[in-house]
Structures are given as C-alpha cells and as structure tokens.
C-alpha cells in the first residue's frame, strides 16, 4: 500500500474508532455512576440519528440534530426513571438483564416506527462526493466533523467531571453511593443524569456518523458490542483510556478490512473482547489488582 492508501485507511479507522470511543464513554459514564453496564447504549446512537433524519424533513439540519439530541437525552432520562429506578434492591445482574430488554424494546420500537430501511442524514458540509485532501488521501469532510465532534465531547467531559459540582457529584456516587447520599447529593438524580448524558452524547455521535455509515434500526447491538469491547480494553470506567482503545480498535478493524475479507471485520472486535476478558479483564490501562473482576 502506498502512503495515500495508508492515510485513507488510517482516517477510516480513527473515524469509526472515535465513534466506538464515544459509545465506550457512554458506557463508562453510566457504569461509573451506577455499576451497571447499559446494553441499550448503542440504541441511543441510532435513535438520535433516526430522529434527526425525521426532523430534517421539517427543519434545517442543525436544528434537526439539536432537537434529536435533546429528545434522545430526555428518552435516556425516561428510560432510567421508568425502568431502572423501579428495581428495588437490585442485583447488578438483574439491572443488566433489564437493559438488555430495554435495548430490544427500543430496537423493535424503531423497527415499527421507522421500518427496516437504511437511511442517513445528509452530509453536514458538502455532499457525498466532496473531498478534502490530506497527505494525498481523499477524505470526506464528514470525517473531520466526526473527529471534531468526538474531540469536543471528550474535551468537554473531562473538565465537567473534574471541575463542575455536578460532575464531581456523579463521581462521588460512583465511589460510594451511600456516602454521597450522606453528603447531601441526590444520588437518584445523579443516576438519571448519567443516563441522560450518555444518551445525549450517543445521539450526537449517531448523527455525526450517519452520513458515513448509514443508519439502520438494528445497528445498535453491534455498536454496543464494540463500544463495550473498547470500554473494557481501556479499563472499565476509564474514559481517557477508552479514547485510546477506541482509536486502536478502529485502526485494527480498518487494517483487517484492507487485507482480508470484509466479513472478518465483525469478528475482530468479538475476538478482542473475548481475549481481553479472559486474559486481562482490567483492561490494557487498568490496574492489575482489580480483584473484583474475578469471582472465587
């Protein structure tokens, strides 16, 4: 492969990889506040994109995206309030199983509301054939949008969690919910907020990637698996590592796709997932002595 081709594949890799990273960050936000793995995370991306596509028929694209993100954020909050909150003395496992059910329900709802056709948002700038040339490779401007939005999300969340009161309150809930409650933090609201935040950034990611990958009602599951793989790869709960891991997975997938059959692309993330779970569940960047990973 010559340089432009390599650059092409690299961009493809980090584009899709940054989306995986956003999904992983969504997982991490909810996991960090509640200890739950939200299987419905992928669906938030698709719902966001589908809503934006529908809204786009009535309002200009930026408004459509904005409305979609807002609505999906609300949906995320509703999901938490209607389902998650109701579970009394829930074992984490039960909650996970519930999110599996929620993910299926959302997918089926999307199927019946929007049908199984593949759709997509229009390109944010330019069209499907406009390109920008970088290092000899022709890149769609949408790629720059994806990278830009992802970067903004990541760079926005870091100060949010570190410096704002709300962000710190959410981190407190992750560490010790009872203690947080004793400090006057409304932990139930924090949980809702974590779902809303994850849903919101998911929707934004879904919208920005839609022109490139298209959107179909059942793409959520595959995104969730890959997002989870990335989250584990970086160490569950560690969002900066998730970014690195996401880019890594994206690049590996792109490389595999360039050399081998496209069908193997899907297998890559699953194999990585199994390998990581078996050999290093604390992730590449996680601390080893996370004994909680292992059962007796």
């Amino acid at each position: 492969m010559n340089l432009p081709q390599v650059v092409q594949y690299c961009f493809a890799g980090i584009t899709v990889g940054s989306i995986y990273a956003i999904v992983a960050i969504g997982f991490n936000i909810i996991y960090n506040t509640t200890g739950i793995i939200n299987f419905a995370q992928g669906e938030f991306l698709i719902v966001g994109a589908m809503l934006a596509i529908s809204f786009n028929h009535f309002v200009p694209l930026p408004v459509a995206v904005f409305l979609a993100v807002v609505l999906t954020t609300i949906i995320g909050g509703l999901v938490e309030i209607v389902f998650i909150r109701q579970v009394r003395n829930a074992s984490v496992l039960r909650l996970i199983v519930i999110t599996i059910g929620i993910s299926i329900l959302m997918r089926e709802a999307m199927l019946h509301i929007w049908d199984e056709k593949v759709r997509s948002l229009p390109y944010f700038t330019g069209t499907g054939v406009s390109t920008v040339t970088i290092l000899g490779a022709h890149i769609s401007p949408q790629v720059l949008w994806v990278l830009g939005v992802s970067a903004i999300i990541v760079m926005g969340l870091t100060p949010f969690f570190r410096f704002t009161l709300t962000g710190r309150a959410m981190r407190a809930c992750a560490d010790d919910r009872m203690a947080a409650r004793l400090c006057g933090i409304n932990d139930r609201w924090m949980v809702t907020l974590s779902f809303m935040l994850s849903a919101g950034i998911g929707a934004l990611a879904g919208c920005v990637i839609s022109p490139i990958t298209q959107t179909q009602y059942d793409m959520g599951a595959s995104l969730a698996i890959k997002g989870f793989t990335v989250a584990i790869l970086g160490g569950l709960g560690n969002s900066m590592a998730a970014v690195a891991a996401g880019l890594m997975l994206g690049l590996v997938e792109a490389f595999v796709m360039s050399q081998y059959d496209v069908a193997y692309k899907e297998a890559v993330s699953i194999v990585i997932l199994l390998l990581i779970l078996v050999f290093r569940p604390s992730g590449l960047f996680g601390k080893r002595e996370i004994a909680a990973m292992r059962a007796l």
Partner: protein
Amino acid sequence: MTHFRRYIPVIAVAIGVIILQVVLSGTHSTYYMTQITMSAYYALVVIGLCLLMGYAGQISLGHAGFFAIGGYTTAVLTTFNLMEYRDTPLVSLCQSLGLVAQRQDIYGADILAFSPWPAFAVAILLTAIIAFMIGLPVIRLKGHYMAMASLGFGLIIYRIVLGGRIFGQADGISNVPPFKIIAGLEVNGRAAFRIESYYIAWFVVLAAMTLAINLVHSRVGRALRSIHENEEAAHSLGVNTYRYKLLVFVLSALFAAVGGVLLTHYNGSIGPSEVTVMKSVRYLVIVAVGGMANLWGALFMGVLLNFLSLRGVFGSYDDAVFAIILIAIMLLAPQGLLRLPKLRAVTSLLSRRANG
C-alpha cells in the same frame, strides 16, 4: 419411597402429554403437535439453562451457540456427501464400521454420509469439548463480564455459521435426514410421523427433567444452590466452586446440544436464525419467567412461550413481546411468575418438589 416422590410431577406431565395427544388426534388437530414437538426440543435448552442460571447462579447470553453446535454438527455430518472419497481408507473404514452409510437424498441421488447416531455422538462430544474450553476462562468472570463473554461466544458462533460455506451461510443446511433411533422409531418431521415424533420429543424432555430433578435433589444440587446463595461460604465449606460451575456449564451446554441435534433432524434443516442473540435472550427470558430455580416453571414456560411464538400469536412483535416479558419479570417478579403470592398455593406443591 421418599426417593421417588420427586417423580410425581414427571408422571403427571407424562399423563398430561398422553391425554393431550389423544385429544388432539380426536379433534383432528394433530397439526398442533408439530409446534408442541418443536417447543419441547427448545425446552431442552431451557432446562439446561435453568440449572446454570437458577441453581449455579451463572448467566449465559450465548446458549443458542451450543444449540447451534449440536445442530450444525449433525447437519453437516449427515448431509456432506462423501461419495467422491468413497475409496479412501478412512471413509471405507467408517463405512465398514457402519458409521457412514449410503442413502438416497430427496432427489433420488445416492449419497454417502454419516448416519445420525455417529453424528449425534460427534455433536455431543464436540459440544462438551467446546463448552469445557469456553467455560475454563469464562466461569472465572463475574456478573456482567461473564454475560458479555457469553454474548461474545454466541456472536462468534453466529458469525462462523453465517460465514462458513460448509455451513450453508445464510441459507443454512437443509435435507437433513430423519434420525432413526432404533428400528421403527424415528425423529421425522413429516406428517405421518407426527405422533411418533411427539412422543419421542416428550420422552427425551421428561428424561432430561428426571436427570435435572435428580441432580437438584442430590448433594451436588445442594452444593450448587449454596454457591448461588453465598459463594464464599460454600467455598469455605469445601465446595470446589470453580469445578462445579464449570461442570454445570458443560452439562447445560450438552442439554442445549441434544435439543439442537433432535430439532435439526425433526425440521430437516438448520439455519443461522437459530443462533441469533435474540434466541439466546429468549431462552433467558423463559428461565426468568419460569422462576430462576424452578425447573418445572422453566419447562412449562418454555413450551408455552415457544408454542405461542411458533404459532405466530405474537406476529411481528415477537421479539418485542419477549423483551417486554423480560423487563416485566425483572421489575415485578424476579423470582419468576410462578412464585407470586397468588399463584403460590397452586405451585407450592411443584416448587417444594423441585427444591427439595
């Protein structure tokens, strides 16, 4: 004898099965038997999963994978035409041992393929090996890690059967011959064999239930329940928790594989749709609704829900229905539908039997 009181429900169900058959034959509605037979085979998966989830307390989101390993193995072995290899030493050895036999396929052509019994043996063995190897690392994982790992396993199997040419890719494998169990008795989907297949299916299911009930009442069953209740305490009492969980995992995989083999021969085909995540979730839903540690509940719900689904009662909302049931059960009755106070009186007899 106290040791056999546990079999009363088995006898009761057996009688019920016979009565049902008589009623259906009498009312000329034997076509229902097809779906009941299929549901019974699916129930085998559920019984195994119930042991794993309800008693050993482990979660598996990929059990459809084991069903598929059983089904696809037998499908491949009994349909792959070895005619061109007929003269190689290995194949002629197999032929002289009776493992491989010549038969006619549906087009009348002669093909040489494995007979169902050897294929069955291979399928079971393969499942045991794979389940053991998957289980070794996965059993160590806790809660959601195990859930994810099992999900990943199911997905890999799905990708393999979907992508592999020998597995028929998206179309799966068809023309799978009937399974001649012994002379005169076979698992065959055709209408003439309906009643025969119905009884074979229920016989297998009740045999599996007997084994499962025995296990639950035994020392091992107690140990499994103790692992589920408090793994650390069980460990400190001398229970090798890792070994037990692994063995139950393999056992539940074998149940699923048997279901896969028999259903494949019954339907005459198998396809990737048997290995989807939704299928695995369905099995999980059924175990949850029946009551995690309630074998009879799981069997009853398994047959009922699968029957309704196969008859198309849920229409295009099939998956959604299962999802709703799953969420409802998790929110409202995590111990299963049959443990709700109102129904307790009705089911207390059964559950006391099931739990010793």
